[in-house]
């Protein structure tokens, strides 16, 4: 289980909850070659990001290798209040995962 890979900001702005998240992950495409060995570096990327508000799924992202390294995601939704809980959880193609909970400010 990966740790401390997710940063998230959730703020109420104009009646909506705006969520921005940055995740530390190599998002390796599997197409790059190791300069020293000449071998292809295996693909290592986040496949799914599940974003929940007070336990309810608001956004589910399916990602491929073309999402940039240290990926960023932002989305907005209504019906949230300050103090609510946002949860961001990811799983990658190697079965690794991490999650974080944050408070809406």
């Amino acid at each position, binding site marked *: 289980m990966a740790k401390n890979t997710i940063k998230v900001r959730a703020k109420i702005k104009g009646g909506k909850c705006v969520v921005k998240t940055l995740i530390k992950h190599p998002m390796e495409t599997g197409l790059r070659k190791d300069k020293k060995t000449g071998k292809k570096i295996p693909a290592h990327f986040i496949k799914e990001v599940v974003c929940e508000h007070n336990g309810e799924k608001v956004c589910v992202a399916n990602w*491929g*290798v073309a999402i940039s390294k240290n990926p*960023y995601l932002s989305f907005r939704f209504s019906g949230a209040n300050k103090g609510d809980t946002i949860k961001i959880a990811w799983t990658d193609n190697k079965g690794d995962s991490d999650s974080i909970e944050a408070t809406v400010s």
Partner: protein
Amino acid sequence: MNLARRDILKLGLTGAALATLPIGVLVPDRSAHAAYPEAVFKEKDLDKALQDLFGTSDIPAGDIKIKAPDIAENGAVVPVSVSTSIGGVESITLLVKENPSPLVAHFELNPRADGYIATRIKMGKTSPVIAVVKADGKLYSASKTVKVTIGGCGG
């Protein structure tokens, strides 16, 4: 419900049958969300990818705004956002035609979510960036070409 839907997808039904299936609808009753479209992420042809996802590659233009640079500073990190005021958005899909595999990302959105996502993507070369929005069972698309260049300062 989800199991039956996956079986139908495997049988490769096209057109109307797929269009009526509630693919990627997030309902607030905590049911499992749609399965990760493994095969589509590997699909090399844009039209085939669209057909696999939506049952058609012929998607009409809609009121969708793609915010992306005209010329990407660096093809490895291209900031892109998709926003639409079309109501009832269920999903937003991002594709890059000239990438080795065009499907970049697929976002399922709860009815409370705005028709908006922002992310950063990799582009191998100059290409149209395509957004497909599914709203109230209907499909809409938009496209914006982003140029990817070779820098002079060593790329």
